[in-house]
């Protein structure tokens, strides 16, 4: 065993260069990236100019463009199926990081830049939620497919969708140059935001209030070469962070990733770090930038077991209190939550204009006044909406309480195991760890533990 490890290290040493990737270059790159993506955002965003004051030119009537057509939708679904199949094949069968990376790049080009980030599985969550709660909403089949297919594949093969199909994951994977390991406690705590975001997104979409995920998609502006400046700046910051912290959006914000993590936990064939038996050399533990490799955990001693049981008991007692506390807090969130509703926003704008609290009008307020609509009727409707949000706030608060409680309880449960293994919830099957593992897969006859890992591809075996 020691000889194996030593040979691996020697093999590694041959690839070591005296001048490692310098900090100066790294920071210059990061700064450049931040500057340019931010610039790109503000500059290319669409503008409208007023029509000429007097001209013989007839002003064209505003027209809603027709959809891209069913053929494109079917094509998207077909490509999604192919991409998911390939991603699963590359992750589980060929165990090729290179192919996964190339596939993710292709997905970025197609689903991102060509199809401009829509439809996407993350956003489809909202359509499904709306379709469940609103009988009048007809959800396109392609959207259902985009929502269900990744879940189905995940249930069998783990999060291969995240690995190489999702354009949002791909763009972060592409800028991921020099990852640092994030402390596990950061992942445990910030990872909860995905669940909170999921709860909020479902509540707002189910009530037809807003599609939060689409509205606050940080990367769609890049795909479309223009968009809301604030969101583009947020996306730029995320990409900048992504240079050092692997996939920050996926880990700390993606609501669909939260759903996938549950399915992945029960996946039938999840990616393994060693293709056969783990030799617990520990070489892989630093390879994963997502903190998705679990180190071995020994069985608890009687003292540890006793302490653990006590801790678990306290947390089980606290859990309902946490849920109630957040539900109570949610009940008071009526105002802030309802402000997402467009009618509430319009009513506030109208009142502010009436009271002279704002000097500017909005298109919506001008249209409202020009159409001579009844402000009282609007306000009465807003009152109903706000009352509904009182209960939705309770639901969201309770959901947050449940999420936090479940997390606390799960942290208090010890799960002994002997190997280094992928954390099936958080592992996105990116394949970075394959190359670090010295255990041969038994299929390549020329490869023995003493020869160490093969030469990585320059483009794909990075950090």
């Amino acid at each position, binding site marked *: 065993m020691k000889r194996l490890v030593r040979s691996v*290290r020697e093999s590694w*040493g041959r*690839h*070591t*260069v005296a*001048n*490692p*990737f310098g900090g100066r*270059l790294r920071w210059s*790159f990061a700064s*450049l*990236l931040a500057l*340019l993506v931010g*610039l*790109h955002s503000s*500059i290319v965003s669409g*503008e409208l*100019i*007023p029509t*000429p*004051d007097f*001209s013989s030119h007839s002003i064209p009537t505003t027209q809603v463009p027709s959809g891209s057509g069913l053929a494109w939708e079917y094509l998207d679904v077909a490509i999604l199926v192919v991409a998911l199949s390939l991603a699963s094949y590359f992750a589980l069968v060929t165990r090729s990081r290179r192919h996964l990376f190339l596939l993710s790049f292709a997905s970025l080009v197609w689903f991102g830049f060509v199809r401009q980030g829509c439809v996407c599985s993350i956003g489809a969550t909202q359509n499904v939620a709306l379709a469940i709660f609103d009988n009048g909403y007809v959800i396109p089949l392609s959207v259902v497919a985009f929502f269900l297919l990744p879940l189905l594949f995940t249930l069998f093969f783990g999060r291969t969708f995240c690995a190489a199909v999702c354009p949002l994951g791909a763009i972060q994977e*592409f800028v991921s*140059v020099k990852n640092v390991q994030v402390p*596990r*406690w950061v992942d445990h*705590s910030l990872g*909860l935001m995905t669940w*909170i975001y999921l709860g909020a997104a479902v509540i707002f979409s189910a009530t037809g209030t807003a599609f939060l995920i689409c509205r606050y998609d940080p990367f769609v502006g890049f795909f479309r070469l223009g968009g809301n400046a604030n969101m583009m700046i947020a996306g730029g910051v995320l990409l900048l962070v992504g240079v050092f912290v692997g996939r920050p959006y996926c880990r700390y914000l993606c609501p669909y990733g939260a759903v996938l993590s549950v399915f992945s936990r029960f996946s039938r064939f999840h990616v393994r770090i060693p293709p056969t038996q783990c030799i617990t050399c*520990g070489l892989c*533990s630093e390879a994963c930038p997502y903190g998705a490799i*679990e*180190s*071995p955990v*020994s*069985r608890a001693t009687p003292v*540890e077991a006793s302490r653990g049981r006590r801790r678990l008991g306290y947390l089980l007692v606290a859990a309902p209190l946490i849920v109630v506390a957040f539900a109570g*807090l949610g009940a008071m969130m009526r*105002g*802030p939550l309802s402000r997402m509703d467009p009618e509430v926003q319009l*009513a*506030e704008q109208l009142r502010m204009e*009436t*009271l*002279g609290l704002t000097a500017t009008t909005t298109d919506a307020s001008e249209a409202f006044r020009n159409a001579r609509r009844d402000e*009282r009727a609007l*306000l009465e409707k807003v*009152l109903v909406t*706000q009352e509904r949000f009182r209960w939705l706030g309770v639901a969201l608060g309770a959901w*947050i309480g449940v999420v*936090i409680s479940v*997390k606390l309880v799960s*942290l208090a*449960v*010890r799960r002994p195991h002997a190997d280094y293994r992928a954390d099936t919830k958080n592992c996105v099957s990116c394949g970075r760890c394959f190359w*670090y593992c010295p255990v041969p897969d038994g299929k390549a006859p020329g490869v023995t533990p003493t020869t160490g890992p093969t030469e990585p591809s*320059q*483009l794909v*075996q*990075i950090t």
Partner: protein
Amino acid sequence: MSGREQPSFGSLMQNDRTWVRISSIAAVFSVVVAVAMLASFAGRVVDPSVTPEFVELKESLREASGDESVHAAIANQIRSLDVELRTEYFDRRAFMGAASWLLLGSLFVTIASAKVVANLRRQPPQLAEFESDVDDPDRIMSLQSLSAVGGFAVGVFLFSSWLIVSDRSVLPPDATHLAALFPESNDVAMVATRGLDVESEELEDAGATEPSMPDVEPAVVDPEVLPTLDEKRKFWTRFRGTDGMGVVESTSIPETWDGASGEGILWKTPVDLPGTNSPIVWGDRVFLSGATEERRTVSCFDAANGALVWQTDVPLPAPEDDGGEPVELTVNDDTGFAAPTMATDGVRVFAIFAHGDIVAMGFDGEIVWTRSFGTPHNPYGHASSLVTDEERVLIQLDQGEEDEPSSRLIALDGRTGETIWETSRDVPASWSTPLVIEYEGESQVITCANPWVITYRTSDGEEIWRCDALYQDVGPSPVMRDGVVYVCNEVPGGAAIRLGGSGDVTDTHIIWQVDFGAPDTTSPLLVDDMILMLASFGTLTSYDIGEGGDPVWEQDFDDGFKSSPTKIGDRVLLIGESGACWIVATTKEACETVSEADLGEKCVTSPAILDGRIYVRGEKHLFCIGES
């Protein structure tokens, strides 16, 4: 002979320096493209129609409306310019589109090359650095992670709480407030008496049963017809009552009350924004203003139960004045941003704030007009209350220093906010409220400041007479009876000035002057043939109204006072800063305390009295004291 061996393409690709160069070149190219885009972005024309050349041409076109040939020529010029500007605009868009793709491509090369560099320079894992969980079995379930999740939960909780606390909505919170915003008819009185579904948290009803409203005349409904002075006297339309004297002759009030226990308190309602102004009452509505540096409101309460009928935000002034200078407003904490008491003409209510902004609102809370007179140069903050006279709203806007006064007395049309007249005053900042009187068939307004007491005609703002009688910071307001005006200030004291003069009457019309016991804040009170002056330090001093001279008596009260004394029937009500209240009976012989009461919180405002009820604003609540 062998030449220098050329490196193969493959070895170049394995050389990290090659990729560093590629990455660097691509990065420089990206920056160049970005700078070009920035330059184009900075020079863009968002709205071609507002360019100076365009505006100038439009103006010329407007002026040339009579001459068809000139008109057509300018129109053609405008068309040409418009086409030019639009062409430039779309050229820029096209350039930006192309540059975006270039930027995207160069960024791609930059990042891809950087990734290759990272790969070639990658360090192998160091086993010595590895940490195994085997020796640290508590790691996964570590306290660190639990604490982090706990901290995250607290963070979410605090953030949500902050969202709740900082939520400022201008929308009506419930159907009641919505109904108040949109009366179903113009009859304000009808809206006022409609059953209000008062939320329990808004109403801290001290009594066991809902008190009934006293019989009051319905409020005036026609905005063009103002109530007469007699009609106004039935209510409390300004600071110290419609006559400004702080006197209610025929009514009785409870002898004691206790704000803490609720005894004798009909209701008390929280007042959210601070203010040192006093309530005014019209019909079954009580009005207050409140303000902080960030927010200003006028609130209307139901006199029957204290429910907030409406609250209207008054827009804050622009953070910069016309000259682009930031508006700086500092006020004394004792004065605050809403010190002047409101006034009503029976159709609208008027409020003025420390910024020098006045607002008029209908009884439904809708803003009718606003005027801004600029931030007064006042060391403590503007405090002079508004008064109305027929259609006029009078503002004593005293400001500036003795050697550089910039004071004005302004009469606005209460219906429109337009200035009816404005008179400059050669006095520095003061804090006194003017008094409108009728004298020999003429409406006059008496003002107090340092050093002049000046009387003006309310019809045109012409000065009638002035008297050198008061010095330093003048806060107390004047009172009048039988052709004599009584003024006072801590320095030099009190004075009685006979009306009827003209010009400077200092040497001819002063009847008497006294120099002891005069207040710096509270206003004097006329009771029978005495004038009572309540000093801030708690001494009530009585003088003979006809002679002045020495005090008839003095009585100490164990409190500080900023609330002016009020005569209610044959009693005098004094309210101390701590909230302690005294009901006293004053005769020529003595001042006897009849009863004592307690508001339960600090109070610096003067009460409004109507139909046996006392409406008074404490530090945090509006109280209604009376018998149910």
